[in-house]
């Protein structure tokens, strides 16, 4: 790598209209390349306009207001086939985000655990982690997804569902877990807990800053319990909100009650999480290995516990190496969620594809897919860049 040196740039050559002149040549090159690109796109566009008029397909996004008429089975938003295409697209976006966000969280947890396991001093653990990583990385995700889906379909029917824990059922109808019926009141309490967590985070920063100033140790966790648990619990008691858990029951051929995750969703989530976790494990491993050994030795010499050293000394330093490649894994997971179309989980790509088949609006449908993914990618990149700047080394 070269370090940027403040060099004196030579004065720019004056533009003169001769091929001997460097600036003029650069200008010609750019005009030529941009001109070819523009002509090429114009040619494609004129073909498209001609073809569309021959096929009597009207361009534009007017079709979004028409009735979609496609069934979507697994949704979080209320939806019926009578709703518009725009609404169907919204459902698709929510379905994509629902897989991507939960997948990113789970893949990070699993990947970090496997990455740390690979560095374990326990030979068996580190070997098994290495086999896990190698096996998952070297098989196409789509193949893994199809296998998970076949296995999911091979599960016993609802009547003979597996019951690993009371109230949790795994069958070819997917995963059913006990639910807390949400009727609005609970959201206030959850909101209070989130608010309490933010307050606790700010308070913690303040207390640590005070401790750095005067050296007096302060208890931090009691504030956390008060803000995150006690106060919301009090609020819940005052408002008289019920947290009764309803257990799913088998009635006839299907389950009633509980939260259910469709087999398609579950297969997609497992495939994305396990596949991405293998890559994240490698990133975490190399990140931890990038922390100089002296940091371990110095912390151990201070008499700190090993788990404390890992959490407080090594991981924060490793994070600086880990975050940039982790960002691209998050982007990959989000983009890979589009494989849903192969097993019939109705994410944005699948819904756009159905729309395309129903209306023939190929250009618009694909433009919408691209716009959605570019927006999500941009969002993740912005957040991760912010986080990266937040944890970056502050040098004196």
């Amino acid at each position, binding site marked *: 790598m070269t370090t940027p040196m403040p060099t004196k740039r030579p004065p720019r050559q004056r533009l003169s209209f001769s091929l001997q002149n460097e600036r003029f040549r650069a200008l010609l090159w750019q005009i030529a390349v941009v001109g070819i690109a523009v002509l090429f796109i114009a040619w494609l566009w004129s073909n498209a306009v001609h073809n569309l008029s021959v096929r009597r397909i009207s361009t534009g996004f007017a079709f979004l207001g028409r009735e979609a008429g496609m069934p979507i089975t697994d949704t979080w938003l209320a939806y019926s086939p009578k709703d518009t295409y725009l609404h169907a697209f919204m459902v698709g976006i929510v379905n994509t985000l629902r897989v991507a966000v939960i997948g990113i969280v789970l893949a990070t947890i699993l990947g970090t655990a496997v990455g740390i396991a690979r560095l374990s001093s326990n030979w068996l653990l580190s070997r098994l982690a290495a086999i896990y990583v190698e096996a998952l990385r*070297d098989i196409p995700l789509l193949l893994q997804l199809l296998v998970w889906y076949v296995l999911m379909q091979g599960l016993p029917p609802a009547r003979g569902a597996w019951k690993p824990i009371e109230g949790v059922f795994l069958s070819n109808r997917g995963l059913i877990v006990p639910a807390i019926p949400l009727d609005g009141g609970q959201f206030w309490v959850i909101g209070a807990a989130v608010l309490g967590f933010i307050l606790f985070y700010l308070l913690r920063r303040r207390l640590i800053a005070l401790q750095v100033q005067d050296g007096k140790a302060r208890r931090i966790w009691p504030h956390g319990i008060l803000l995150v648990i006690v106060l919301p619990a009090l609020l819940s008691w005052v408002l008289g909100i019920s947290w009764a858990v309803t257990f799913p029951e088998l009635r006839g051929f299907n389950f009633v009650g509980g939260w259910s995750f469709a087999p398609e969703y579950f297969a997609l989530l497992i495939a994305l999480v396990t596949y991405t976790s293998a890559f994240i494990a490698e990133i975490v491993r190399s990140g931890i290995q990038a922390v100089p050994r002296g940091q371990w030795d110095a912390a151990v010499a201070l008499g700190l516990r090993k788990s404390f050293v890992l959490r407080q000394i090594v991981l924060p330093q490793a994070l600086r190496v880990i975050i940039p490649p982790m960002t691209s894994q998050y982007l990959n997971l989000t983009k890979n969620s589009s494989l849903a179309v192969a097993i019939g989980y109705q994410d944005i790509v699948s819904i756009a594809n159905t729309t395309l088949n129903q209306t023939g609006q190929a250009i618009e449908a694909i433009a919408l897919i691209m716009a959605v*993914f570019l927006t999500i990618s941009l969002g993740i990149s912005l957040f991760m860049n912010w986080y990266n700047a937040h944890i970056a080394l502050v040098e004196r």
Partner: protein
Amino acid sequence: MATTADAPRPSSRPRTGWDAHPVLRWLRANLFSSIPSTVITLLLFALLAKMVVGFAQWGIWDAIWTVPGNDTGACRAARGVGACWAVIPEKYRFILFGTYPYDEQWRPALATLVFIALFYVSSLRFFWRKELVLIWAAALSLIGLLMWGGIFGLTFVSQDRWGGLPVTLVLATFGLAFGFPLGILVALGRRSKMPAIRSLCVLYVELIRGVPLISLLFMASVMFPLFMPDGVNIDKLLRAQIAIVLYAGAYLAEVVRGGLQAVPRGQHEAAEALGLSYWQRQRLIVLPQAIRHVIPPLVNTFIAFFKDTSLVLIIGIFDLLTTAKTAIIDPAWQAFSVEVYIFVALIYFAFCFAMSRYSRHLETQGKQGA
């Protein structure tokens, strides 16, 4: 959790019991060094034993290896208990070569061997020179000749009858062969001083990398015909190939750009001082150094393409995964898809594992050399 940096402590105890034998010492240091470690070892061992025994029972002892004719009664009886490997000898020709004419299937088989030989030759340091381009051109033409035929007494086989492993290899290898020069041009463009060219390259790379490959493949399969003039009808495989080349170009451009950034500025300046033109500088001085830097990430990118070609399943092109999925549409064998998927997974794994080993080998070599 027990983690690294656990240097074996010098022990002053007498060498008895655990310390008596090197194997025992190894066991103690690596499996039973502390109470948590012992617990982890025992738990994992129990889990592993259960899984291995379960898999061996399903995959070996209770498995059915052959059935008479197309009669899958025995397999069906063993369903859920044992695997039905009989599906592999029954279907492997279709999985590997798709609908390629049965009597001519030695041709795709030979083409596959040419591909493997090409990868092997490219991996040898001795061949990392300009002549490699000629070797690639020769090998790819030979593969085209074998697959299409039409001359030298080979009957012509149109590409909509191609299928299986050769198609996967064609998509990945041609994707690399055409995506790589494209990637180099775009990487140079991204570092160019001309603002219009630079922004065009940035736009291309970010647009392609921001969307999933599936959307590009959809574009190739449904949008591409709309953008062509009347009467121009490009084959489906070729359209998918174009999408993969464009996709590969964007990712390879980023890899090459990393290599370009690692070439010291002095190299550019010295080349300029010698009076070399821009293209001479890049071709003779900068690119050879830049590409050598990035060979391990290039191999990793290639592994990713190799796996990603399986996505053409979604637009209905007969690659290895699609033929596998089609093979089990046959009602007699429908229930045994897991066996077929395992077979195909092993093929993908063999290719990717060999390449990832090679890339790791290059990385350690590079570190030693530096």
